[in-house]
């Protein structure tokens, strides 16, 4: 029913825009990653693999990448542990309050990242709310220094930020489980535990995978929480990229690291999607 002209009119402008502002930048990132910086601080457009060799040779790069992945993995696990039971409760047992509770989980998702990261800074600092509270009730005599400027602070804050992200797809998956399957399982004599482990959990795996991907990918690339709360031991790979694009002025090397992140992230998204399709029964 729609003419060629109509289709062209709705297709061309967004395609051109996306080609210019989303596709070209990734291509440029790819190109930059093979270039280098001259001693005079200009970009040399010569093509070689030196940046990638540096990534493998210099310990600090791949060690930081591994540490970032470890931080992201912990954030993912904690987010799932917090989000799954909550999604289960909302989907199966919340009854009439479901809508309200759902809304309450979704609100923090859209509330300023900076506001929430800052809130944790005021809580965890050595003069912060938590330390002074602990001293006030005489649980500790001196401020606990490990609370702020540590990987712990980063993991805690990122878990706070990404738990709603993990929640959404899990909840969606649970909501899509046909309730008659659950009833059938009960009618056929399965205990609630068996029903959960053998019916509900397997059917919600695609949601869990999606939630895990969100939490992992977004926290892996985070650089603001580590800057604000991480201290020297909480540095993540994106912080290195930021300094390479700033004071250290080595855009090509920064581009190489970013590209590795991009490939890793896109690979993870594809992988979890594939795996999710295998698990979904529809």
């Amino acid at each position: 029913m729609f003419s060629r002209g109509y289709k062209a009119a709705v297709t061309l402008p967004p395609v051109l825009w996306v080609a210019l502002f989303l596709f070209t930048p990734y291509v440029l990132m790819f190109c930059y990653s093979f270039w280098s910086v001259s001693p005079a601080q200009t970009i040399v457009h010569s093509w070689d693999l030196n940046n990638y060799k540096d990534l493998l040779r210099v310990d600090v790069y791949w060690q930081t990448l591994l540490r970032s992945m470890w931080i992201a993995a912990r954030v993912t696990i904690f987010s799932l542990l917090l989000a799954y039971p909550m999604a289960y409760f909302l989907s199966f047992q919340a009854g009439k309050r479901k809508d309200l509770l759902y809304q309450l989980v979704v609100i923090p998702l859209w509330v300023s990242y900076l506001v929430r990261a800052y809130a944790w800074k005021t809580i965890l600092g050595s003069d912060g709310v938590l330390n002074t509270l602990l001293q006030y009730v005489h649980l500790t005599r001196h401020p606990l220094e490990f609370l702020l400027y540590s990987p712990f602070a980063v993991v805690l804050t990122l878990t706070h930020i990404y738990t709603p992200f993990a929640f959404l797809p899990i909840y969606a998956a649970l909501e899509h489980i046909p309730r008659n399957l659950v009833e059938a399982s009960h009618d056929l004599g399965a205990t609630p535990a068996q029903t959960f482990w053998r019916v509900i959990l397997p059917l919600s795996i695609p949601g869990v995978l999606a939630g895990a991907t969100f939490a992992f990918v977004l926290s892996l690339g985070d650089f603001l929480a580590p800057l604000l709360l991480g201290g020297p031991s909480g540095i993540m790979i994106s912080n290195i990229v930021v300094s390479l694009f700033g004071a250290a002025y080595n855009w090509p090397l920064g581009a190489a690291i970013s590209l590795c992140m991009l490939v890793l992230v896109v690979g993870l998204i594809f992988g979890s999607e594939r795996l999710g399709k295998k698990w979904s029964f529809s």
Partner: protein
Amino acid sequence: MELLVTRDAATAERSHWLLLHCVAVFAFLYLPIAILVLYSFNGEGVGGFPPHRLTLDWYRTLFADEPIWDSVLNSLEVALAAMAISLAFGVPAALALDRAQFPGKALFRRLVLLPLILPGIITGLSLLMLFNVAGMKLSLLTIALGHGTALISVATTEVFAGLQKLDRAQEEASLDLGANYWQTFWRITVPNLKLPIIGAALLIFTLSLDEIAVSFFLIGRDNTLPLEIWGRLRRGITPEINAVSTVIFGFSLIAIVLWYRLRMRGEGATDAGIEIVEVAEGGQA
């Protein structure tokens, strides 16, 4: 149907633990924000238990703080421009995904939605390289272009979800009765998509106001509000930052609840927000 599950004695026992878990997670999600708000009234700095000498002084300081208000104006400009860009390209993109077949459609869909799940640093840096190669000076315009481009994903997912529920017969009738595509688009398609479009606009506006990771790389001389706050965080903190954060939180809250209400009117269900995740994960579009 759910009754069958809850009536079971063993499940009821377990649901106490689930309820407790939920309360704990809600506390984890909201307590930090509550503390932030509380200490914006604290006379004695951002930490320190118990709070002392409750005061409105920090709000007075905030309202007299010119750099903050300049940055608020900048942020509003950026958010409006980003909203215009995202809608101008996101609405047609949703129509294209719904109605047209073209080579590279799958790649196009992925590219549009990618910024939704990509860490901001990658979107920001790749655009920085583009502007650098194009010789564009960094300014509020580059931030608006960045936000606008990244948030096309939001406009597209919201409108695409709306299109799935649209009755094509109306558009068909309009065309049969002699209206051209342009008239049909403005008189039938857009009015029918009013709720998703308003919802998307609201969401894009809020997200752009709060955005920091992409702006971080595209910033010129003028600060947006989050970057102004960021700069101050690094110089040392006062409850004035709590005060401005509280105001931001209040505005986000209003916008999100409004958006949610709009979606409820459109859907009448708790699906709001889920589409974004599903479409972003490549499940539906």
